[in-house]
């Protein structure tokens, strides 16, 4: 099936280090959503970006939507062990639909 690439696939960081995951699409997106899935859990919505160049912050998390609306990033400052999980971007990668396709995900492990 259709997939959207996220990089890196895995990331191990020491607690306190920063972390960034990138989401790339070949098509322009009307919006993009980010989800977090804890080990053994289900994806939980974090945030949505709609505007070109939009930047949103949630405490230590910073989300950005590219100017061309084809890529997005999630940056976590000073990671904590509670940040462990897999982060997915998701968007209507088929133009004009509400069919949400999820990125391949980035699995974050935080070492105490």
């Amino acid at each position: 099936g259709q997939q959207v690439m996220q990089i890196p696939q895995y990331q191990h960081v020491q607690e306190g280090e920063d972390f960034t995951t990138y989401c790339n699409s070949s098509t322009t997106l009307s919006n993009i959503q980010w989800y977090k899935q804890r080990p053994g859990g289900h994806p939980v919505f974090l945030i949505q970006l709609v505007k070109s160049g939009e930047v949103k912050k949630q405490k230590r998390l910073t989300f950005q939507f590219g100017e061309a609306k084809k890529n997005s990033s999630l940056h976590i400052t000073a990671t904590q062990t509670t940040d462990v999980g897999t982060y997915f971007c998701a968007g209507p990668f088929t133009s004009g639909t509400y069919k949400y396709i999820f990125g391949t995900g980035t699995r974050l492990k935080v070492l105490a």
Partner: protein
Amino acid sequence: GAGVSQSPSNKVTEKGKDVELRCDPISGHTALYWYRQSLGQGLEFLIYFQGNSAPDKSGLPSDRFSAERTGGSVSTLTIQRTQQEDSAVYLCASSHRGTAEPSSYNSPLHFGNGTRLTVT
């Protein structure tokens, strides 16, 4: 409030048998999705229902897979003649709005806890 409910939570079946997975979305949510997640992998889109419109079945991997949504609410995903490669967690999600509004805020997807299917 009640979230998305999926049943069973676990299902073990023998190769070749049929299985039915159930999803009860959040009341009032018009859009319903099915995804499949293999161990340690991402979410593979299977099918999407939006209100009374014809479902988007473009993600179904084979004709052994089918899904229906009765009365715009409960959905059942059926896998016929199961194969070992069907083993995965099947996740259902619902959202409040499903119409394409390219420049508007779209409601987030709310996921159930999934059904873990094991085909032996």
